[in-house]
């Protein structure tokens, strides 16, 4: 078991190190987060709509679109010199490869989603609400479900002629539950509702994330084998 975890850790370490060196994705996603909020500001008439009313939804959509940027390139660096082949031919179980990739994607996306919330608070004067921890948890579970499905489909789409453009078509229908429960919980938390009202949402987000990670771990091997 510890060997298994060690292999996952090696993959996460490698991905995060690469991200640190290249800063490709984190800069793109971070810039997107800020710029999207700017565009939103100009797209709403603030005399008619209060940002607080639509804030939760905008936050989650920004995270989804930004996340798409990052997750689409999951296997980009592996493809350059055939490194993915090298990893797949090593004695690492395919589910461990998936879990490692998902975990490193999660770290990236979670950091970005916290940035998104911070930016929205700054630009639109929104408050964190009663329970920042619950908000953080909702974001974490949503991000986890997203990256699990995203990593699996990134592997699928990088094996097709259409590549990353296929990703939204595959992902978006499946993300409806995440948006419903995630944005729902966020909206309630941001408008000061008590934590008890979002417990159900959090549970559903957790179940969704669990399903996504488990299904991805099992199905990944069928995607990457050749």
């Amino acid at each position, binding site marked *: 078991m510890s*060997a298994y975890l*060690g*292999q996952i*850790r*090696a*993959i996460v*370490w*490698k991905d995060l*190190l*690469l991200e640190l*060196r*290249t800063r490709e994705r984190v800069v793109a996603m971070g810039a997107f987060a800020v710029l999207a909020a700017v565009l939103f500001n100009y797209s709403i008439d603030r005399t008619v709509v209060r940002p607080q009313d639509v804030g939760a939804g905008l936050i989650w959509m920004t995270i989804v679109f930004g996340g798409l940027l990052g997750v689409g390139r999951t296997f980009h*660096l592996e493809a*350059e*010199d*055939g*490194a993915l*082949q*090298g*990893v*797949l*031919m*090593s*004695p*690492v*179980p395919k589910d461990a490869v998936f879990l490692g990739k998902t975990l490193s994607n999660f770290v990236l996306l979670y950091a970005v989603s916290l940035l998104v919330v911070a930016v929205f608070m700054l630009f639109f004067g929104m408050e964190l609400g009663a329970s920042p921890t619950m908000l953080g948890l909702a974001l974490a579970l949503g991000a986890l479900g997203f990256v699990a499905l995203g990593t699996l489909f990134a592997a699928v789409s990088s094996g097709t002629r259409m590549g990353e453009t296929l990703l939204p078509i595959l992902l978006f229908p499946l993300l409806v539950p995440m948006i419903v429960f995630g944005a729902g919980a966020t909206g309630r938390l941001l408008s000061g509702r008590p934590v008890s009202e979002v417990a159900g949402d959090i549970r559903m987000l957790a179940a969704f994330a669990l399903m996504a990670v488990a299904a991805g771990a099992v199905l990944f*091997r069928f995607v990457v*084998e*050749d």
Partner: protein
Amino acid sequence: MAPESESPPPVASKPALEARGVVREYGPVIAVAGIDLSLERGDFLTVFGPNGAGKSSLLGLLAGALRPTRGEVFVDGTRLDFGAVEWRRNIGVLSHQGFLYAQLTVAENLQFYGRLYGLEDLERRIPERLAHVRLEDCSDALVGQLSHGMRQRLAVARALLHDPDVVLLDEPYTGLDPSAAAVLRGVLTELKDGCRTVVMVTHNLGEGLALASRVAIQVRGRFAWRGSREELDSNDFERLYHRVVEGRA
């Protein structure tokens, strides 16, 4: 009357690497059309053949990178099972792609693969391997800054890092300058230590013959010619090769 006691039947040693009727299709294209091979420990098989003969696919099948459409591969007598992963510890693959991360250093690349293979003593192993391929001074250089020859040498170090019994090489001499080729030749010669089984695919008739104990020529997915090195006259081989490839042997 009780039969006289016979000496126990000789234990058939399992071939180190074996393929039985392997076929590999990509939709309508048949890359490998049914190949049998059986190699003992210490064998060094070089496979020659024109482009499109399916040599890389054959190597992929032997490496467990490709699933055979039909047929089976056996490593040390055990059937290759895509579900299991332990058998991969014993196989080292060198492709024309290096499997390297350009944005990591030489040492970091080896550390990564070392951890994937669960190797314990990386602090000792990595400098050793780098010295082996004459890259000991480049430990902290980013792979992206290395020349092609140096990257290929690093790829060799990576392929052999875990001391595999079976080594598979796909066109390793491609694009190498003479000094890099010499280093590679030295490393490959060392592989012929009687314990390791090597299969090399190459266009380079000279290098390929120099190290081979067995030779095969693959044409359109099949072995059109196969034999041992001793049967061959190295001067004559080029003519034999062309005859086979053009279908006149």
